[in-house]
């Protein structure tokens, strides 16, 4: 869910998406090449991309339905500057292997997932500035929850803005705005579940492998 397929968006939006993603990726790669050893994190980012791809394919039964988590909040937290390159690569494989998204919408989808991911990352790190005990259990839980919920909520919001505004329709602006708000709010339960799941995951990672969450200074 939350992948825009081919054919829906007009070419200008697709090109715009590539422009945003291209710029973000270019900036990320430039930051990466400034590191002491820029190759060091390539295998890490690549395998984590694969792992996130695989993890998001797990269908989790929440009766009566089942959900897939998009985990972009966690992905931003774990990958930092590699988030955009990782989104590009991961979404490329999702598009060509299982038909989630598409080649023309790759740029749009990467921006739609990547920007909230980076915001979630900065948000999760902001607890270092805000608290004396940023790694207390409750701090990780609360901020993990919010990072996950923000990641999904923003992505869903962008998704509906793009789809509702660009699909040729006879609606007026007010109707469209109402539709976007309504559809995004309909994601509240999903945001809560994604947040809870992300918080659980972060607590687990913090306990077993803290490097994953805090290696950048």
């Amino acid at each position, binding site marked *: 869910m939350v992948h825009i397929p081919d054919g829906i968006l007009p070419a200008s939006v697709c090109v715009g998406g590539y422009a945003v993603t291209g710029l973000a990726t270019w900036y990320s790669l430039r930051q990466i090449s400034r590191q002491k050893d820029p190759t060091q994190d390539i295998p890490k980012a690549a395998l984590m991309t694969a792992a996130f791809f695989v993890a998001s394919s797990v269908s989790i039964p929440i009766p009566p339905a089942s959900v897939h988590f998009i985990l972009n909040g966690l992905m931003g937290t774990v990958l930092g500057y590699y988030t955009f390159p990782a989104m590009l690569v991961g979404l490329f494989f999702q598009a060509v292997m299982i038909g989630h998204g598409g080649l023309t919408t790759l740029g749009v989808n990467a921006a739609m997932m990547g920007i909230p991911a980076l915001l979630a990352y900065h948000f999760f790190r902001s607890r270092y500035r805000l608290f004396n005990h940023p790694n207390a259990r409750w701090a990780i839980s609360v901020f993990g929850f919010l990072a996950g919920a923000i990641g999904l909520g923003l992505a869903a919001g962008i998704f509906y803005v793009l789809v509702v505004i660009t699909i040729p329709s006879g609606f007026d602006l007010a109707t469209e705005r109402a539709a976007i708000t309504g559809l995004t709010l309909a994601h509240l339960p999903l945001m809560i579940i994604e947040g809870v799941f992300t918080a659980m995951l972060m607590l*687990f990672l913090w*306990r*077993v*492998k803290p490097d994953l969450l805090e290696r950048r200074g």
Partner: protein
Amino acid sequence: MNYSETSPVKAPMNAQNNLPSAIVTPPSNTAIAVTNLCFSYPDKPEVLQEIHLQVDTGDRLGIIGHNGCGKTTLFLLLCGVLTPTAGTIHLFDEPVIPGKFRPEVGLLFQDPDDQLFAASVQDDIAFAPQNMGLLTEEVEQRVEQALTLTGMESLADRPPHHLSGGEKQMVAIAGLLAMRPQIMLYDEPTANLDLRARRRLIQFLQQSQETLLVASHDLEFILEVCDRAILMSEARIVATGTPASIMGNADLMHTYGLEVPYSLRR
């Protein structure tokens, strides 16, 4: 409780039973009865062909053969992960239904990392009892018992991920024992152990009560642990007997590309 005609039963122990034996299902001591079992993936050569196997309660059966001879597939069929293309499998006279959870059989994977994922050793061991719907006290009791049996008490609060290879394996075993299985399947249990952990595992298995099936390339290990062995090659069972009689038979071993273990050489 259907009772397969083809599964041979040794000495049904229904002496205490006064009814005519023809109309009651005789309680048997057959732990595993496999009849005419075949398995293959679509459009691939057979992985298992016409396997007949009977394992009695308390038997310790070693399975030897090269990678790809079908050992792991046999284990996955026995615990209902895979569906046979033909043939039947009964555990304690009850047919194995693919996908159905049978706590009486435990499978130890080759890589313990594949079966450890909780945040602490005791959470991991509690996983199966909790899924079985047991009460909290019962779960705790089983966890404690499994920790004692495997000698892992001191590690109860640690994340399994931080343990050494040998410790991980004992925790994985503990996680299975908490189901109180009657049959344990061990897939290459010594592959990643050093000599000390291997020796500990041998002593542990020699004292364990379950019916054991052990697939291993470590022939000396099978000689020490098992009282029966089968040799598999290209999807079939090609020899059955005591471990020493099979592994000591130089002609047989060479025919199937194996080597007589040093302890049996003169």
